[in-house]
């Protein structure tokens, strides 16, 4: 054992952080996002506990958590389907070969959408099955409302995927962490594990501007035995259309910028 060698190695790995903003941000980003999400979950549970008339009231919240977990995964997989497909070509230095093939950028995007659907399909079957086996939680009992809720998560996932892919296209592998970071930046705001009104009042409008928020509110409404969440779904869908148009515009712009700066070739070969 040599202290010199150990410290030399330790130095080599910490020096990385000195010059890399993404690495520094990562050091704070993930723990902070986790803290926010679990902090608000705690607030929500405390509130439930304080206002509960009977011990069984807490059970509702637990069901919400399980449902939210599974719903969240749809959003996440849809986004990853788009972004990781692109990154896959970057990592394997294949981007060049794909982009010199006679493909339109729209075709590329649609293909990544399909990948998202496949990823979701596999994950959903596994999660729904496990939740039922282990916790006797039957998500399918939510009935028909599941379908429009899922579709809206899918749409928002695609929009987020295009935005993150655009960022990576333009700023390269330095911002690769955004592929995983953006969804988790959205998570505390999208009221995934707790209702919007747990959030501070000034954050609530931001939260309501996200399609996912309305999906999760709708999910909680259905899980609590409420009526079909028409208003939530209309909001989610309207916002999703706006987000998709915006994301498509952004993605195309970043693609044109990348072509102008010769970044497609650079990303594909470095």
């Amino acid at each position: 054992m040599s202290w010199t060698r150990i410290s030399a190695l330790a130095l080599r790995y910490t020096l990385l952080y000195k010059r890399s903003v993404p690495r520094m941000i990562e050091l704070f980003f993930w723990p902070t996002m986790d803290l926010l999400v679990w902090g608000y979950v705690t607030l929500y549970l405390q509130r439930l506990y304080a206002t509960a008339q009977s011990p069984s009231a807490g059970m509702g919240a637990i069901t919400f958590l399980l449902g939210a977990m599974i719903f969240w995964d749809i959003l996440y997989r849809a986004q990853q389907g788009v972004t990781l497909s692109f990154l896959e070509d970057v990592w394997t230095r294949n981007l060049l070969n794909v982009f010199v093939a006679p493909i339109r950028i729209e075709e590329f995007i649609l293909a990544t959408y399909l990948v998202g659907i496949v990823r979701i399909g596999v994950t959903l079957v596994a999660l729904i099955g496990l939740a039922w086996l282990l916790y006797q939680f039957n998500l399918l009992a939510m009935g028909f409302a599941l379908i429009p809720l899922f579709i809206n998560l899918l749409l928002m996932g695609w929009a987020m995927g295009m935005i993150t892919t655009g960022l990576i296209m333009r700023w390269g592998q330095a911002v690769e962490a955004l592929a995983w970071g953006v969804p988790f930046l959205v998570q505390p705001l999208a009221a995934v594990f707790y209702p919007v009104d747990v959030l501070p009042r000034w954050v609530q409008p931001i939260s309501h501007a996200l399609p996912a928020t309305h999906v999760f509110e709708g999910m909680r409404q259905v899980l609590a035995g409420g009526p079909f969440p028409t208003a939530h779904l209309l909001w989610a869908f309207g916002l999703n259309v706006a987000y998709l148009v915006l994301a498509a515009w952004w993605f195309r712009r970043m693609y044109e910028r990348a072509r102008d700066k010769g970044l497609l070739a650079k990303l594909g070969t470095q």
Partner: protein
Amino acid sequence: MSEPVVEVKHLRKEFDGTVAVADVSFCVGRGEIVGLLGPNGAGKTTTLQVLLGLTTHTSGTVRMFGKELRSHRVEILQRCNFSSAYAALPTNLRVWENLRLFARLYGVRDSAAKLGFLLELFEIKHLKDKVTGHLSAGESTRVNLCKALCNDPELLLLDEPTASLDPDIADKVRRILRQIQREKGISMIYTSHNMREVEAVCDRVVFLHKGMVIAEGKPQQIIDRFQRSSLEEVFITVARSGDVLDGSGTNTG
């Protein structure tokens, strides 16, 4: 000569103030192999990237198959293909999966037969089921070339295609490219730093230096014009004194 396959006029490409290609004009005729030569940083790769639609040009016109590149990119790319020592096929797929994938992207009919023939041609049939990432550099270069020929391209763009091949295989590859060009009348644009190879393969060369064409013609013509004994000597002369020579060797052919 019939209408050129590639017609580049006053091509210019700037990257945020860096001039990668200053003013380049050249043509490639049907069935012609044109070598793009020049020192590191001369603008060869950038020129190829513009022709492939990977990079948009700042000014000038690029026409391929008689069509403007900007407005007919997909249509043009359908009739081209590309191979580079620096671009890989997905490393985590098997060779055969990769080739099938690209054949599909190019809309190749009867791709199994076509790809089988190409694997045979490049003597790599035995690698069919190997994971692409496990191939040696020379093996993957040949797989890349199979991909580059899968759609029977009318124009093949090759960026240092033989960079990692051993002399024996490099020679075979050159002969195959020559043979395909003769049989099918494919046009090619070829960059290479191996001057003997360029002399052996290219019908005509375009010499770039600092983003400008400083000489153009048949390899032998250029050797004669610069009064040297080989293209390699011409290259060294040009690379070391490109500014001085500017104009002296241009457009006399």
